[in-house]
């Protein structure tokens, strides 16, 4: 056996590595599998195949591995899909280290394919796409080289250079074809999302919990991932930094450690919710919550009045979803989705608003203090505010004072018995939750109704939209001013309200998020409905744009593109068909010759190598074979039909074959009776 081509083996091994990586990126594959496979890959890439000597034994060793994995699944220690993926990885490692033969190569690529399928079930995110592409390209190149290598006579060099170019061209065509196939062939969607890792850059970080606990982790502030995109109408065109408050929910009860809400959830689910009456000037927002958001709470610019028309993004396409009202002005989506989009009408800051529907208990709660509140808090508040009677003026006094006297820090001292006292009197430093909690409680000690609000602060313009990052998460204070409703007062120093991440990191993350978004919407969640939309977009004119620009007359550009592409496709098809050797209309004759040769072979008179029926008939006639007189006219008729443009009449073929069969029978009987 000759030495296999080194390049081909390297390509093969790398394609397997890409396939394994497609599973490994989900970080669900156990570490021991990862280590085993990595070792096997390194050894294989150096050209050594240590398992070649005992292929059977090492293959048998896979059985106990399968058994162990099965037990792990049965015992509930391991997920079935993950176990299957791990086993595929081990099999791939074993095959990589075995003697290279065409069978092994096939098995390696097959296992690679299985691992890609496993990767699709486990992760399916953007890096998976890269792995899939790498696998497809490397495996195709290796397969193509294998075919060429087999065709080259032993001892001669394989023309790698000459082969790689057409192979690469073919691979590119195949990838383009696969993309077209993906876009155009109607698909069925199964929900494969069960095993998928959280999309993008790991677990979503800005989840809204039911409570706000002082002293939690501070890393959130430096997270630059985009959680929300919003399009505003009227559009504040020139505003690069919106610096607005995006409210998620409010809290009215503080127990010394945690904020919570006493309001109960309403059982009714609605598609539209009106929190308070609207006004003449309203800001309309079309908001999209991205997968990184990781919560079901709706976010809206302060102060939201009406919310609704919510769509939920799922792996099987967009679906309508309904909203549920919870206490503390919080709205939640009823269903779990990867992301959401919805519409909001908000009253701009400075507008007098209705405080919203509150029952007596809830209203009373706006003055509630924790039972063991340190008396120094009230003293401090009185000291700062003096005898100010206006709630807003008092809040602003306190806020200005706090911003001057207290430091902002993300370094926290861990769990404390009384974090508020620690913030106000010991460390004199904290983050937004400390500032907001302190302001709210100090106002309450003075008899001013107030509550804590959480959400996001900021809004950075990207294109025609504003984006909000996870690090923009923020907490502030709502002060109830009689006749004007809740007014926002923020005691956190202005420089520390928005996210604290690095600028470079921010833009990189934005870029990644954008690509990830495209991948998710147009590949992973690409559904039959999207296909229909795509097709419709090709044939229908675009919707009237809201800016009222003059529409160009004539068909839309999409239609021109479609027509051009279709014309190109038809042209290519015609070229291809005209260049292809025309399928002879005399196929009947070819079928005749096939049938005749079959009959002859069955009768023990097969044509010799390279012999046509014409040669066989000539040989029979020359040798005065008893079948010669039958075969000669048949052959002549075949040649006429095939090359002389005198096609066989209907039934002629069957008649001639029947004659031949009879002649063969007679000949066989004759030779049998002559034999003894």
């Amino acid at each position, binding site marked *: 056996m000759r030495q296999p081509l080194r390049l081909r083996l390297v390509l093969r091994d790398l394609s397997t590595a890409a396939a394994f990586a497609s599973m490994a990126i989900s970080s669900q594959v156990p570490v021991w599998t990862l280590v085993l496979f990595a070792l096997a890959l390194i050894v294989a890439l150096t050209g050594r195949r240590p398992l070649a000597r005992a292929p059977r034994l090492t293959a048998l060793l896979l059985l106990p591995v399968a058994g162990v994995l099965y037990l792990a699944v049965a015992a509930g220690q391991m997920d079935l899909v993950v176990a299957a993926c791990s086993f595929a990885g081990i099999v791939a490692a074993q095959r990589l280290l075995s003697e290279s033969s065409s069978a092994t190569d096939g098995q390696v690529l097959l296992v690679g394919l299985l691992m890609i399928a496993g990767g699709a079930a486990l992760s399916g995110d953007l890096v998976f796409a890269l792995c899939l592409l790498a696998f497809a390209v490397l495996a195709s190149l290796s397969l193509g080289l294998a075919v060429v290598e087999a065709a080259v006579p032993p001892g001669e060099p394989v023309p790698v250079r000459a082969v790689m170019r057409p192979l690469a061209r073919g691979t590119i065509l195949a990838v383009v074809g696969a993309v077209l196939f993906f876009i155009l062939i109607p698909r069925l969607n199964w929900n494969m999302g069960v095993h998928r890792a959280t999309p993008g850059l790991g677990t979503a970080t800005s989840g809204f919990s039911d409570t706000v606990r002082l002293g939690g982790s501070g890393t959130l502030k430096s997270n630059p991932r985009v959680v929300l995109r919003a399009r505003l109408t009227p559009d504040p065109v020139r505003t690069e930094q919106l610096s607005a408050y995006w409210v998620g929910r409010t809290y009215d009860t503080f127990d010394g450690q945690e904020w919570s809400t006493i309001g109960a959830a309403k059982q009714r689910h609605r598609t539209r919710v009106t929190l308070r009456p609207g006004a003449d000037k309203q800001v309309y927002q079309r908001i999209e919550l991205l997968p990184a958001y990781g919560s079901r709470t709706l976010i809206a610019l302060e102060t939201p009045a009406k919310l609704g028309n919510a769509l939920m993004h799922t792996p099987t396409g967009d679906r309508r979803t309904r909203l549920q009202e919870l206490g503390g002005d919080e709205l939640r989506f009823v269903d779990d989705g990867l992301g959401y989009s919805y519409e909001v009408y908000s009253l701009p800051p400075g507008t007098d608003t209705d405080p919203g529907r509150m029952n007596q208990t809830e209203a009373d709660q706006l003055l509630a203090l924790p039972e063991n509140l340190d008396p120094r808090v009230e003293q401090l508040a009185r000291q700062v505010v003096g005898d100010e009677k206006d709630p807003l003026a008092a809040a602003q006094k306190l806020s200005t004072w706090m911003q001057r006297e207290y430091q902002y820090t993300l370094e926290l001292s861990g769990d404390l018995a009384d974090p508020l006292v620690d913030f106000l009197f010991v460390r004199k430093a904290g983050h937004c939750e400390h500032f907001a909690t302190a302001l709210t409680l100090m106002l309450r000690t003075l008899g001013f109704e107030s509550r804590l609000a959480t959400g996001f602060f900021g809004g950075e313009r990207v294109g025609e939209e504003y984006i909000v990052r996870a690090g923009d998460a923020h907490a502030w204070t709502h002060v109830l001013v009689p006749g004007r409703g809740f007014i926002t007062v923020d005691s956190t120093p202005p420089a520390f309200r928005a996210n604290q991440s690095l600028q470079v990191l921010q833009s990189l993350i934005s870029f990644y998020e954008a690509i990830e978004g495209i991948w998710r919407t147009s590949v992973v969640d690409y559904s039959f409905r999207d296909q229909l939309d795509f097709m419709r977009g090709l044939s229908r004119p675009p919707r009237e744009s809201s800016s009222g620009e003059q529409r160009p007359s004539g068909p839309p550009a999409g239609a021109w593109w479609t027509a051009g592409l279709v014309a190109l496709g038809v042209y290519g098809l015609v070229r291809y068909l005209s260049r292809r050797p025309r399928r002879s209309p005399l196929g009947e004759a070819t079928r005749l010759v096939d049938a005749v040769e079959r009959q002859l072979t069955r009768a023990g008179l097969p044509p010799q190598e390279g012999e046509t029926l014409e040669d066989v008939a*000539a040989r029979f006639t020359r040798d005065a074979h008893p079948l010669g007189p039958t075969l000669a006219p048949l052959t002549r008729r075949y040649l006429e039909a*095939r*090359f002389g443009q005198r096609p066989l009449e209907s039934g002629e073929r069957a008649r001639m074959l029947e004659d031949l069969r009879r002649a063969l029978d007679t000949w066989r009987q004759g030779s049998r009776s002559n034999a003894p």
Partner: protein
Amino acid sequence: MNSPARATPALSSPAAARSALEQVAANLSLAVRGKEKEVRLAVTCVAAGGHLLLEDVPGVGKTTLVEAIARSFSLSLSRVQFTADLMPADILGAQIFHAATASFSFRPGPIFRQLVLADELNRAPPRTQSALLEAMAQGQVSLDGVTHPLPRPFTVVATQNPVDFSGTYPLPDSQLDRFLMRLSLGHPAPEVEARLLVLARDAATAGAVVEPVSSPEALNGLRAQVAAQRLDDTVADYVVRLAHATRSHGDIERGASTRAVLALGMAARAHALWEARDFVTPGDVRAVLGPCLAHRLLLRSANQGTYTRDEALHLIEEIARKVPAPR
């Protein structure tokens, strides 16, 4: 000088053509015994309107065959013995000055016959050999700026001795390419030789025993029929694929030329007449493949000096086996 009939010769039907060919072949077999296959190929070549190269040791009936062909078709024959001192004018003819009329007149050479036997062609110097080129290719002779058409039909049969090369000028490839077929008669079988002894006929008169069975007009008709034979696209493709296979074969330095492809098609058309067909089959192509191509290929081994006569034929057989015929 006879003026050739330019009118389109009447087509004969395939069946009539076949009987005419069979008649001629049977007639020739009387003169050249035991060589049916070669005789049929020689007739095929003449019917296809091609020139024939006979390559054989002396004394196996080359001249006899040519003479018999001339008699069978009632063709005018001239025989030119090529020697080292033969000049082009000796073949083509020359301008003769007549003192009485004080004018030049053209005296045609031996080439102005319907069948020209160029005996031991390779003994003449290249200049003389190439004098044949225009005649063979264009069917005309140009001398001193005047073009003289050759009679129709016009066929050259050249012979050469494949063994004795001393004092010869090997035929250049351009010249070889102009011969439709190359044939070797080879020694007759022992029983045929014994039969010749019994007949006790003089070799010189052997060709004369045959009677004319056809005419130059009939031969022109045959050629018209050959040209009208139908060649299916798939068979044409087969011919091209065969020629292409000789070009890409590892042992062949230079494969079949385009002229070789055309020659192969023409010979196959003529061969189809033997079966009274008006269309060509792949079998026809294979039947004439060796005689049409073998002398046109330049083998690698020829450069190394280890070339044998049969090698080209073997290679062609191998190619014929490998290139799949249309079915």
